[in-house]
């Protein structure tokens, strides 16, 4: 567990293999909610929160339930159920105890259950930080940190995209390109520029 490793995870999750622009996780929400900056930001915070929470929960489930009993093949099924129920639970808690917060990002919570980024990060954590069925040293903290970084990466892509699309409102666009096609082409150019980070080494 060194600073350099954490830095590597940060650079890799935020820039080099950005969840949206290079792994294509959470693309549906990225295209659908990036029309304006404000909802885009609220959505990013909600996603980050859920990813961090589910990274922690799924790590514990894998380490203390699935591995000891040799049930690794139940990974997909147990993760998606746990994520779905915990998101639902958080939604209820937030609605009851923090109504202002609920108004900001609560409405996005149910959507996030089936956001591939959440399950994707959980699976990725297991693939990266468990070697031959054993947790590497500090793997819990790596998982948690990777969750935070993926959330930041998602937020960054979302912020950039929504800023660009807000300006596009004022431009005249060929009819066939309106809405989705243009969004994909913009995302493609953003992804191209994010590729520039792939030479980073420590």
């Amino acid at each position, binding site marked *: 567990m060194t600073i350099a490793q954490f830095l590597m995870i940060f650079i890799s999750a935020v820039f080099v293999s950005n969840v949206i*622009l*290079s*792994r*294509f*996780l*959470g*693309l*549906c929400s990225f*295209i659908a909610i990036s029309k304006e900056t404000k909802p885009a930001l609220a959505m990013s915070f909600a996603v980050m929160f859920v990813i961090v929470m589910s990274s922690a929960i799924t790590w514990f489930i894998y380490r203390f339930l699935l591995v000891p009993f040799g049930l690794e*093949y*139940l*990974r*997909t*099924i147990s993760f*998606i*159920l746990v994520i*779905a*129920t915990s998101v639902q639970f958080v939604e209820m808690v937030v609605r009851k105890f923090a109504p202002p917060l609920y108004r900001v990002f609560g409405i996005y919570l149910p959507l996030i259950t*089936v*956001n*591939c980024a959440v*399950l*994707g990060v959980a*699976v*990725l954590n297991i*693939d990266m930080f468990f070697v031959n069925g054993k947790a590497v040293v500090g793997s819990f903290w790596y998982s948690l940190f990777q969750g935070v970084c993926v959330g930041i990466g998602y937020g960054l892509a979302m912020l950039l995209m929504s800023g660009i699309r807000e300006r596009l409102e004022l431009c005249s666009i*060929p*009819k*066939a*390109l*309106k809405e*989705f*096609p*243009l*969004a*994909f*082409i913009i*995302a*493609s*150019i*953003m*992804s*191209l520029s994010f*590729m520039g980070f792939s030479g980073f080494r420590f």
Partner: protein
Amino acid sequence: MSNPVREFTKGIIKENPTFVLALGLCPTLAVSVSVINGIGMSVAATFVLLGSNIIIALIKNLIPERIRIPCYIVVIATFVTIIELLMKAYSPALNRALGIYVPLIVVNCIVLGRAEAFASKNSVLNSIFDALGMGIGFGLALVLISAIRELLGSGKILGITMFKGFEPMFAIGMPSGALLVIGLLLAFFNLLKKDKV
């Protein structure tokens, strides 16, 4: 009254899951580097779609309304686990190439979308044809995208070199190429639709 043939054909063109409904784009983009990956992914997704549509159409009357989504997810996740284990056993190379996108079929919107919108309201027979049609539509879209990307990105199709002396466009094989190809394809299909009206 809807007939099985119509359920089958609608998924291929009129309600093509990728180009018309814009569902399930994450795996489409991620695995479309080569045609063989695209075929593998669409076979896996079709299997899951077929299995979950049949089971959900069978048990639709037993599922309480309020918890139907978790029930669907369990059924879908079971089939994903089956295909994951099968793939690990019989074609480890494909499993490595598809990586985390195999478990992610669970959250593929096409599968859950068909369960919710179709299988939960229709008979088993119609659901089977719906699943097959959607699966083939998804497969065709995936093969189209991956063929374009493989041809331009590496000058090959299914690993066979098509042109001699062709300098491959590296960027098309990268993630940005996937986004560009699907953006232009969507624009192209929009154009066709506009002309028809």
